[in-house]
């Protein structure tokens, strides 16, 4: 008997994972200001908060979006300079300087995002490094505005609507108040469906696109968020230290932030705070090392990336799971989901029409004038020798490759040049030759995240709900239903990477169905399955087709495909060499020549 509640019992919530340690940490932070004895220690405490805030922002782009940005320090410096200039030259109060200090880096981020964000990892990192250099050089050169190499001094403390916040304890509490708000916001944004979408987008971008997730937009939002947090941290820094110089734009600030994120844990909120506390206090503890404390930073960074890639918080969570394992929470109850969306085309009309598709790679014609149609309720088999263009064709239909020529329409709508994630959302779901599940996520979560578009998934919706995200709860319920339909619901809470190949295949199909597609594209679904699994799969696919789904299957396994398919299309060297019923295909001499072979060939 399954028992579930929207929120777990308070006792279970407090002892889950490493929460007891985290609560202890929060207590320590709350109590610390009362124990602090000197103004210097209070300043260190404030700096820890400021760097924690910057690191929290960095976790969006570096941790959640998985992009190694090296502009975090630059955004920090820009926020600091904006505050300095506005407060000293224009006398603006903090109620204006703080939001503006957050807004200007966001604008800068939006500006540089276009050329830079779609680059892959190392391109992106070095591009952001270049931008950092430009800002640093500009700050030094633009003397009338930024005070040149000397910077700007005499910045007032935080003055909100005329009331000055006292320095020392006042600014410390203000800064940590900001950290608390920022942490709350981070938690809200990443705890539910949006957080799961971020994880898929970073672990497996192609899979994410096939689930309707706009990975570019997610990265963009994360980049802007990171800039906002960094700008605010810079503003607080300016109000605390009261001097801003080009040093705030130099690389050591970025290095510190990166080290904090890596050492603390790049997706854990607690990691940002723990990391900040460690990294800011390191120079104090190693005061004997004097100017060589940066060598200690470097060594800490190196050791952590080798030994604890998920940071100290990740390490703690791993130890907790190893030495004090807890039972996984019970899965949510299944929520029924219609297997086919209510959108319908006229009877007998083709749902998918592919006309004259052409694709060349360099000098090779991978796909040459290929046309085919798939109707609702029909199973079409796509066969041909390796390299004949089958997967390339599917990649063009799903928008992963841009076709050189040709047209693809779905239900009358032209999707030839549509973006991959939009094509997925308009009703085409696919599975991959090499199964593209996220190994670290549970089976249930892998399927649930496919409900992203249907839940109206997006940044704004992540703010909804209370302790849990209702859209995520709904998504997981639907996912359970689909897993049960595919017969894999007992694996729901296991990491997807632990499953046997045949089960993974079924999970992937469940995930595809979660999109409520009109057309299902399966790339070698029977590969790696034994005979009984194949028969089971064939039966399920027949049921789906009978329920109205259109199915296109690439297969090499003829005993599996021939009884299943209503029609078949055979490709060779990128061209269609035959199309028709399975019986006609089997007898077609060109297909036999190119692909099937004769009994004599088999005996040879």
């Amino acid at each position: 008997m399954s028992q579930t509640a929207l929120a777990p019992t308070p006792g279970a919530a407090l002892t889950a994972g490493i929460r007891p340690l985290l609560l202890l940490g929060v207590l320590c932070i709350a109590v610390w200001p009362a124990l602090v004895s000197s103004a210097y220690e209070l300043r260190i405490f404030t700096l820890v908060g400021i760097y924690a805030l910057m690191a929290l922002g960095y976790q969006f782009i570096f941790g959640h979006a998985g992009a190694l940005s090296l502009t975090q320090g630059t955004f920090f410096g820009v926020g600091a300079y904006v505050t300095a200039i506005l407060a000293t030259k224009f006398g603006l109060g903090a109620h204006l300087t703080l939001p503006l200090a957050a807004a200007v880096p966001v604008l800068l981020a939006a500006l540089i995002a276009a050329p830079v964000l779609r680059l892959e990892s190392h391109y992106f990192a070095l591009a952001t490094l270049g931008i950092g250099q430009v800002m640093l050089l500009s700050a030094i050169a633009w003397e009338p505005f930024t005070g040149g190499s000397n910077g700007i001094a005499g910045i007032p403390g935080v003055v909100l609507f005329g009331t000055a916040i006292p320095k020392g304890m006042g600014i410390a509490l203000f800064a940590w108040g900001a950290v608390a708000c920022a942490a709350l916001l981070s938690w809200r944004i990443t705890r539910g469906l949006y957080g799961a979408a971020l994880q898929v987008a970073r672990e497996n971008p192609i899979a994410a696109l096939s689930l309707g997730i706009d990975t570019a937009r997610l990265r963009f939002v994360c980049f802007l968020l990171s800039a906002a947090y960094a700008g605010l941290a810079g503003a607080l820094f300016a109000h605390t230290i009261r001097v801003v110089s080009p040093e705030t734009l130099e690389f050591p600030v970025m290095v510190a932030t990166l080290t904090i994120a890596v050492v603390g844990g790049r997706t854990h909120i607690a990691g940002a705070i723990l990391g900040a506390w460690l990294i800011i206090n390191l120079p104090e503890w190693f005061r004997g090392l004097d100017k060589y404390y940066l060598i200690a930073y470097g060594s800490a960074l190196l050791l952590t990336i080798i030994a604890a890639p998920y940071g100290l918080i990740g390490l703690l969570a791993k130890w907790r799971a190893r030495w004090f394992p807890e039972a996984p929470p019970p899965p949510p109850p299944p929520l029924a989901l219609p297997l086919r969306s209510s959108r319908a085309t006229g009877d007998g009309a083709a749902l998918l029409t592919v006309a004259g598709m052409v694709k060349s790679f360099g000098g090779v014609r991978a796909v040459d004038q290929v046309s085919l149609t798939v109707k609702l309720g029909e199973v079409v088999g796509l066969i041909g020798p390796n390299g004949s263009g089958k997967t390339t064709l599917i990649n063009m239909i799903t928008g992963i490759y841009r076709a050189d020529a040709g047209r693809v329409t779905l239900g009358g709508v032209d999707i030839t040049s549509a973006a991959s994630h939009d094509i997925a959302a308009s009703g085409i779901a696919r599975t991959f030759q090499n199964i593209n599940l996220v190994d670290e996520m549970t089976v249930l979560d892998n399927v649930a995240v496919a409900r992203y578009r249907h839940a109206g998934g997006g940044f704004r919706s992540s703010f909804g709900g209370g302790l849990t995200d209702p859209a995520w709860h709904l998504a997981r319920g639907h996912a359970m239903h689909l897993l049960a339909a595919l017969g894999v619901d007992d694996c729901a809470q296991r990491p997807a990477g632990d499953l046997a190949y045949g089960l993974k295949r079924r999970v992937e199909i469940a995930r595809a169905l979660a999109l409520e597609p009109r057309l299902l594209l399966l790339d070698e679904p029977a590969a790696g399955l034994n005979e009984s699994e194949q028969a089971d799969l064939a039966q399920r696919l027949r049921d789906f087709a009978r329920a109205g789904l259109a199915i296109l299957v690439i297969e090499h396994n003829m005993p599996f495909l021939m009884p299943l398919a209503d029609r078949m299309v055979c490709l060779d060297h990128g061209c269609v060499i035959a199309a028709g019923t399975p019986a006609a295909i089997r007898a077609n001499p060109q297909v036999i020549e190119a692909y099937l072979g004769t009994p004599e060939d088999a005996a040879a």
Partner: protein
Amino acid sequence: MLSQILLNALALGASYALVALGFVVILNATGAVNFTHGDMVMAGGYVALAVSSATSLPGVAVLALVIVAMALVGFVFSGLAYFPLKSRPPVAIFISTIALGIIFQNSANALFSAEPRKGPPLFADGLITLGDISMPRQALAIIGVAALLILAQHLLLSRTSLGRKLRATAQDREMAAAIGLPVNAMIALTFAMGAALAGAAGMMLSNTFFVTPTDGSNYIVKAYIAVTIGGWGSLAGAVCGALLIALFEVLFPSLPLLIPSLKTLAPWLFTQTASAILLYLGLLAIMFFRPQGLFGETVQRRV
């Protein structure tokens, strides 16, 4: 005047070419960006400084020692930054090289202090006069030596069986291992080669431009720009990109000297700072409009 500028540009370009070449060689072999590459250039300059102040060897002998020493550094480096992380995504290696870069920089700071130091010349300082043109000896020496090193590198990779093995490892590590090549040794050797090239460049640059512990980030960005212009992964492209960068860096601020009317037009534009900013902006433009560079091929990911 123009010939002077062009010579300086060529000398600078030759040094940058060595840096970019070493960068690409490691990139191709490991798929990982070595963020410390710029710091290795800096390290080469300091090693040259140390050797020349401790001994009275001629410049070329110092160069040989620098190359050997930096090759060793490259070996050790690969053991710290690369091999513990080779089965992880490339980002992890990027971070480990950042970490080692920090260690390099601050060790240099500790050993030599932060003020700029002048490295030894390859042959001698001073000028050679040919007719009415006088050229700095060092500039000519750099061009000659760099050309030799690039040629040697090219011959090693294309004509020797060791070079074939290195290229095989770089192109497809798994396949190379499958046919029995000692892949780990090849990668370690590649790191050594990259570091040696960087170190040689460092020594040459330290005489004209001095050396400070924080030079690294400047050189890594230059190497990166060169490789992006030339096409990610292309050796010839890296060399061309490096020459183009040097040409721009030297020629652009000197334009008012060649065309005096420009001096009054926009004096702030033709400074070192402005040309540096323009270079980075140019990089962003290239990445936006032609990310595969001049010689690169657009690559599609296999699904």
